[in-house]
């Protein structure tokens, strides 16, 4: 079996989700910061560019005179990372920082400032600002370029990314902690539920308290209902056991009395004594039989409902048993059941229901016993009839009342009928008594 922990799942889920969210945040923020750096660098380069362009004049033959250049000392220091270059058709001027290098050519069509990244001098990539300018008194356009080493931009960006990453890892740790606390708090009711259920196991009268979150409450209510049902079952079982014990007490008392009679040695009493013993044993057997029938009925309650029993085959089997008895072999059996008829009950249950009913029918029949099926209101009825004396209407009601002593009710039909009734009711069926056209009792069953 695969075991898994709810806590581990929740924690893992939370930490992974938080990590993913923070990672995305890191990527986006780093990207935004780099764009911001570029915009800032562009602003600075533009300021320098305006300073540069302010001095720009062209002489009549198109050559570009010496330029002051912007104030930033880095323009004076070779390979400092900050460069400018002004190039016209007849020659160009460059910042000292460019030394012997040249800024790469860019398309000479930008009438406003534009930026782009290019491969530049000293093997570095450059962030380049450029446009063309028409100097005063000149007919030729000159290309003005200012550049900043990309490395400077990146250095600031990387530092920011690193600091941000460190910070976000700290946040991640803090949030994971919070998630863990949340999971612990969320699962806490389960731990107390476990304790209470353990207590419930020790004492069936105990119930789970109502102090649970609304999400757990349906569960605790279901458990409480289950516990109540179990308690009721146990109570009923105890009651049954007590009933059985009481049922056995009378025969036991009778047995004791007869035993005393025998011991007192009156030989002429021995015959009545043994008859008394037999009566007591029969009463005990009836009590046990009734209890067994109830137990069987309880067991069949657990059976599946989609079972299909073939009543014809079952009735034939039962008749083959009854035909072996002295009375049974003198009875004429009629089976009016289609071979294809199926009832929604297990074969075993139907056997145990029809068995006592047929036995009764044979016992009371004069000559004939009939098992027949009819269809009524979409229900299949199964009836067992005999041509015996039947039961009086007043007694019929008695037999069907719960709690009537099985062996006394219904003029001897009692035990069999009561056993059948218990089983029929346990399997969700109906049992009714009536008069048969044959003259005796008709027991009708339906599921």
């Amino acid at each position, binding site marked *: 079996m695969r075991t898994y922990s709810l806590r581990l799942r929740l924690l893992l889920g939370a930490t992974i989700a938080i990590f993913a969210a923070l990672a995305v945040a890191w990527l986006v923020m780093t990207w935004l910061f780099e764009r911001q750096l570029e915009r800032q660098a562009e602003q600075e380069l533009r300021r320098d560019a305006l300073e540069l362009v302010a001095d720009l004049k062209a002489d009549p033959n198109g050559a570009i005179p010496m330029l002051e250049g912007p104030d930033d000392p880095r323009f004076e220091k070779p390979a400092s990372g900050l460069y400018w270059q002004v190039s016209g058709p007849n020659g160009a001027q460059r910042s000292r920082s460019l030394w012997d290098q040249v800024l790469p050519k860019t398309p000479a069509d930008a009438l406003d400032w534009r930026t782009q990244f290019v491969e530049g001098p000293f093997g570095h990539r450059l962030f380049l600002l450029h446009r063309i300018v028409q100097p005063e008194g000149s007919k030729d356009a000159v290309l003005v370029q200012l550049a900043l080493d990309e490395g400077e931009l990146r250095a600031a960006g990387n530092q920011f990314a690193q600091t941000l990453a460190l910070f976000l890892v700290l946040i991640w740790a803090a949030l994971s902690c919070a998630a863990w606390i949340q999971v612990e708090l969320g699962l806490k009711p389960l731990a107390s539920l476990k304790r209470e259920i353990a207590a419930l196991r020790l004492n069936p009268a105990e119930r789970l308290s109502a102090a649970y979150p609304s999400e757990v409450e349906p569960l605790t209510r279901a458990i409480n209902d289950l516990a109540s049902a179990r308690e009721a079952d146990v109570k009923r079982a105890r009651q049954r056991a007590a009933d059985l014990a009481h049922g056995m007490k009378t025969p036991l008392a009778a047995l004791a009395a007869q035993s005393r009679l025998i011991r007192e040695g009156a030989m002429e009493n021995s015959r009545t004594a043994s008859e008394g013993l*037999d009566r007591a044993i029969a009463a005990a057997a009836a009590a046990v039989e009734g209890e067994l029938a109830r137990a069987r009925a309880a067991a069949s309650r657990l059976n599946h409902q989609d079972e299909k029993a073939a009543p014809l085959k079952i009735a034939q089997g*039962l008749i083959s048993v009854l035909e072996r008895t002295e009375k049974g072999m003198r*009875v004429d059996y009629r089976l009016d059941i289609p071979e294809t008829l199926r009832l929604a009950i297990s074969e075993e249950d139907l056997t145990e229901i029809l068995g*006592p009913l047929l036995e009764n029918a044979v016992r009371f029949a004069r*000559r004939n016993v009939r098992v027949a099926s009819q269809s009524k209101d979409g229900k299949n009825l199964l009836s067992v009839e005999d041509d015996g004396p039947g039961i009086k209407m007043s007694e019929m009601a008695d037999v069907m009342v719960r709690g009537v002593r099985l062996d006394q009710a219904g003029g001897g039909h009692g035990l069999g009928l009561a056993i059948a009734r218990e089983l029929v009711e346990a399997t969700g069926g109906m049992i009714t008594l009536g008069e048969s056209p044959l003259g005796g009792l008709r027991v009708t069953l339906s599921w």
Partner: protein
Amino acid sequence: MRALVVEDDPDVGPDIVRGLEGAGYKAELVRNGEDAWFKGDVEDYDVAVVDLGLPRLDGLSVIKKWRANDRSFPVLILSARGDWSEKVEGIESGADDYLAKPFQMAELITRVRALVRRYSGHAAPVLSIGTLSIDTRRMAASLDGKPLTLSQLEFRLLNYLAHQKGRAVPAGELAEHLYGAEDPDDTNAIEQLIVRLRRKIGAERIETKRGFGYMLADADR
């Protein structure tokens, strides 16, 4: 009369043996299924009393094995379970009667006597009238070698007629034999039975002798 008692309970087994011996049987006690199977296979008994819950081999299997080996002595089953499914299963396995525990010894003796009487009353176990043959031990009949499905009552009617071969049997006598008592209404019931039996074995096999009764005829001659 020899009886085999198969019962593992140390009290009940000897008690049955005592009971049967008191009734004039020579009874042997076996305490497990395997011994029972062996004994029943090699020795001839007139009746066997078999408990179902046995060590080593259960009672139903013992009976099935005997029947598979053509051992046809009557068998009375004893069982503590006493539910109907088991009774049906027992009869289908080849047993002849069933008694649930707890039982009265007198009841057991009565059942055993009835079984023995039923199986030993006939000199010839199989009666033949033309192509109709009646196995009085198995209580089964066949026509042209095909088994007939007869109810007990129908079989007993046919059997009685077969034993009174050549004589017309009045309906009243049949009723007395079949039902054990005479009742004016029963002639009707006998008539219905005859109609049913004729449907199963052929109308020409049971002749009606007006004023006398019914007679089984050899219709194949």
